[in-house]
C-alpha cells in the first residue's frame, strides 16, 4: 500500500476528488436534515399548532393557554424532526409525523396521543379522512399507508396500530397528501412532477386501486396541494404549487390542467435578491375559505402572494402581494381555519448548521380578507402586529419558544430550508464524465476479502 505513494499525481487527484465527493454528499445529507417550521390551524380556530424540529407546540385559543401534550410513550413526543402536521376537517383529530418514523394521532379535546403508528421509513406527508376514521401517511419511498381509527373519546389506552399499504408512487418522494372536500378522492403529489388522484374506497385497508386521473403538467417536483371548494362541484378544484415556480389549477375528475399561474416571475419583480430564476419553489399554499383566495408562500418572498380563483372561467390570477415589512420574514408554512378569517404564517427551521439556537420560529397572522359577498365593504389584507394576534403574547411565547429572536437567524433559516428542499427534491444532473466517475466507485462485486 505504501508503494502507491510513488505513483503519479493522477492517483492523488482522484482521491481528493473522491474525498470531496464524499464530503459533498455528507454536506448534502446534513443540509437535507434541516426541517422547516410548520403551522396548522384547527378548523374552527380552537387552537393553533406549530412544529419546529422535534418540538410540537400547541396553543388553545378557547381557554387562552398553552397546551401540555399527554403522550404515554414517555419523553418528548417526537424524537426527530416533524415533517408534517394536520388537523382533521371535523376538528377532533390532529396528526404529526416525521423523521423519527412515528405517526402520532392526537385527540384535540384533551391533547392525548391516542395512537402511535410505526412507519418503516421517514414520513413526508399526512392526511386525515374527512370522517375522521382513517389516517393516511406517505413515506419517502413513495408508499402511502392507511390506518383505521375506530371512533373513540380519548379515554381509552393508546392504540399502537399497524398500517396497511394504500397506494404507491414508484420510488418517488411523496410531498403532499390531501383528501378532496367530498372525501371521495385522495390526492398524492410527488417529486417526479406527478399528481395522482385515486378513488378512496369504502374499505381502504384493502388498498386504493382505482386511479381516477393523473394531473400532469408541472415541470418540476410538486411541493404542495390544496383544495378550493366550489358550490356546484362537490370534489372541488385542486391547486398545486411546484418547484417550477407555478401554481396550477386542476379538474381532478379528468386530470385536466385548467390554468397555470407563473408566480415565480412575479416574485423576481419584487424581491431584489431573488436573482436566481431556479429554485423559486412554492413552499406552501393555503386556501382562505369563503373568498376564493389562495395564499402562496414562495422562496425569497418576504410575505405572501394572494391569488384569486375565478370559478366560472376556472382561472387563477395574482391579486395582491402582502409584504411583511419591518422584519425578515419568509414564511415556511401557512395555515387557515374555516371560520377564523385569518391566515396564519410561520417561519423557522431546526438543526441549522453553525447555529446553536435550535427550534426557532416566528409566527404572524394576516387578516382582512374580502368575503365573496357582494355589497360587503372592500377590505385590505393587513399583517397583524403581535398584540393584535388572537392569543397575543401568550400564544407567541408558546409557539415561538420566545418573544424576540434575532432577525438574521430567520433569514439563515429560510435559506437553509430552501437549500434542503432543492437537495432533496431536485434530481441531480451529472455530466457524462461525472457519471462515469461515480460508476467507478460502484461496487457490484462480492467482497473478495
Amino acid at each position, binding site marked *: 500500500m505504501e508503494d502507491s505513494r510513488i505513483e503519479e499525481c493522477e492517483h492523488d487527484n482522484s482521491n481528493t476528488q473522491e474525498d470531496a465527493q464524499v464530503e459533498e454528499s455528507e454536506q448534502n445529507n446534513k443540509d437535507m436534515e434541516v426541517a422547516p417550521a410548520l403551522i396548522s390551524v384547527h378548523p374552527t380556530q380552537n387552537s393553533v399548532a406549530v412544529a419546529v424540529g422535534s418540538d410540537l407546540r400547541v396553543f388553545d385559543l378557547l381557554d387562552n393557554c398553552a397546551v401540555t401534550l399527554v403522550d404515554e410513550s414517555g419523553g418528548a413526543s417526537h424524537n426527530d424532526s416533524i415533517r408534517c402536521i394536520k388537523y382533521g376537517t371535523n376538528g377532533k383529530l390532529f396528526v404529526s409525523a416525521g423523521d423519527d418514523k412515528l405517526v402520532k394521532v392526537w385527540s384535540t379535546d384533551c391533547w392525548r396521543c391516542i395512537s402511535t403508528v410505526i412507519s418503516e421509513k421517514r414520513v413526508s406527508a399526512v392526511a386525515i379522512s374527512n370522517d375522521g376514521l382513517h389516517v393516511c401517511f406517505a413515506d419517502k419511498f413513495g*408508499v402511502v399507508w392507511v390506518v383505521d381509527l375506530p371512533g373513540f373519546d380519548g379515554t381509552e389506552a393508546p392504540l399502537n396500530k399497524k398500517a396497511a*399499504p394504500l*397506494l*404507491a408512487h*414508484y*420510488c*418517488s418522494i411523496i410531498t403532499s397528501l390531501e383528501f378532496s372536500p367530498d372525501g371521495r378522492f385522495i390526492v398524492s403529489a410527488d417529486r*417526479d*412532477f*406527478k399528481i*395522482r388522484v*385515486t378513488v378512496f374506497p*369504502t374499505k381502504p385497508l*384493502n*388498498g*386504493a*386501486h*382505482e*386511479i381516477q*386521473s*393523473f394531473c*400532469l*403538467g408541472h*415541470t418540476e417536483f410538486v411541493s404542495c396541494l390544496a383544495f378550493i371548494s366550489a358550490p356546484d362541484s362537490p370534489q372541488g378544484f385542486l391547486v398545486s404549487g411546484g418547484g417550477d415556480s407555478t401554481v396550477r389549477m386542476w379538474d381532478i375528475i379528468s*386530470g385536466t390542467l385548467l390554468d397555470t399561474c407563473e408566480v415565480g416571475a412575479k416574485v423576481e419583480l419584487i424581491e431584489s435578491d431573488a436573482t436566481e430564476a431556479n429554485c423559486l419553489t412554492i413552499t406552501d399554499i393555503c386556501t382562505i375559505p369563503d373568498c376564493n383566495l389562495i395564499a402562496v408562500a414562495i422562496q425569497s418572498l418576504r410575505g405572501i402572494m394572494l391569488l384569486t380563483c375565478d370559478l366560472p372561467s376556472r382561472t387563477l390570477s395574482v391579486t395582491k402581494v402582502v409584504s411583511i415589512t419591518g422584519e425578515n420574514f419568509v414564511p415556511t408554512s401557512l395555515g387557515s381555519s374555516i371560520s377564523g378569517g385569518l391566515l396564519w404564517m410561520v417561519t423557522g427551521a431546526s438543526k441549522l448548521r453553525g447555529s446553536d439556537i435550535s427550534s426557532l420560529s416566528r409566527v404572524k397572522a394576516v387578516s382582512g380578507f374580502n368575503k365573496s359577498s357582494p355589497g360587503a365593504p372592500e377590505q385590505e389584507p393587513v399583517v397583524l402586529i403581535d398584540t393584535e394576534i388572537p392569543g397575543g403574547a401568550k400564544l407567541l411565547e408558546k409557539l415561538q419558544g420566545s418573544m424576540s429572536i434575532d432577525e438574521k437567524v430567520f433569514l439563515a433559516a429560510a435559506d437553509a430550508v430552501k437549500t434542503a428542499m432543492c437537495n432533496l427534491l431536485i*434530481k441531480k*444532473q451529472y455530466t457524462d464524465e461525472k*457519471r462515469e466517475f461515480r460508476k467507478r466507485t460502484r461496487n457490484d462485486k462480492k467482497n473478495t476479502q
Partner: protein
Amino acid sequence: MLQNKGNPTINKSTGLPRKRFYRARAHSNPLSDSHFPVPLSPSHVDYSQHYPQLFPAADQTGTYKKIQFADIGCGFGGLLISLSTLFPETLMIGMELRDKVTEYVKERILGLRVANPGRYQNVSVVRTNSMKYIPNYFEKGQLSKMFFLFPDPHFKEKNHRRRVISPQLLDEYAYVLQVGGIIYTITDVEELGEWMKSCLQNHLMFEPLSQKELEADPVVKLLSTATEEGQKVARNGGQTFQVVYRRITPAS
C-alpha cells in the same frame, strides 16, 4: 440515418443491426434516476417521431389513432416485430430501460421499414423507465394489450419491490388499460410466475382469461416463441409459466 456504409454495427446485406455491437448487461436497475427525456403528458408524446409515415406532421391535434399495444421491457424487439404484421392497423410501442438495447431495436425497425416498404410503420420503441413513467405516455384506458415477457425476477426478497408486476404497479397498469384490455405475462422462473399470478389474482381490477379464450387468442402462442428470450428457453428445454388476465370494472 441508414447510410451506414462504413458502419460495422449494421449488416450491409440485410440492413439490420448486428447484435454483438449492442450487447448490454441483462440487468438494469429500475431505481436509478436515469438520463432520458420524459414526455410531460400523453398529449406530449411525439407520434411523428415514432411513426413518421403515419403522422407526417409534428402537429398533434386530432391524432386519429393512439398507441394500443405496449411491450414493457421489450428487449431486442422480437415480440413487437411479430405483432406488427399480425396487427398492421394497430399502433404499438416497446419500452426498454437499457440504452444499447433500445438503440438496437430502433435500428432493427428502421432496417425492416426500408426492406419492406409500407410495413413495420406501426411499431416503435422508446427508452424509458416504465415503472415510473407509464402515465406520462398513455391516457386513461388507452391500451388494449400490455406485455410483460420474461421480466427481471429480482430473486432476493429485498429486491422484490423492483419487480415490474406488483400490487401497486398493477393500479397504474389498470389505469392505462381499457376495460376488457388484456395483460400478458410469461416467465421461465416458477417463483416469479407464482408471484405475478398471485398479484393479479388479488387485484380487484383483473380477472383471468378462461382456457378457451387463451386457446382462441393468436397472441398467446407468440409469448413463448416470438422473443429471443423465449427461444432461448425453448432451446434449453425449459418450462414457461404464463399468466394472462383481463382488465375489468371492479364490483363496488
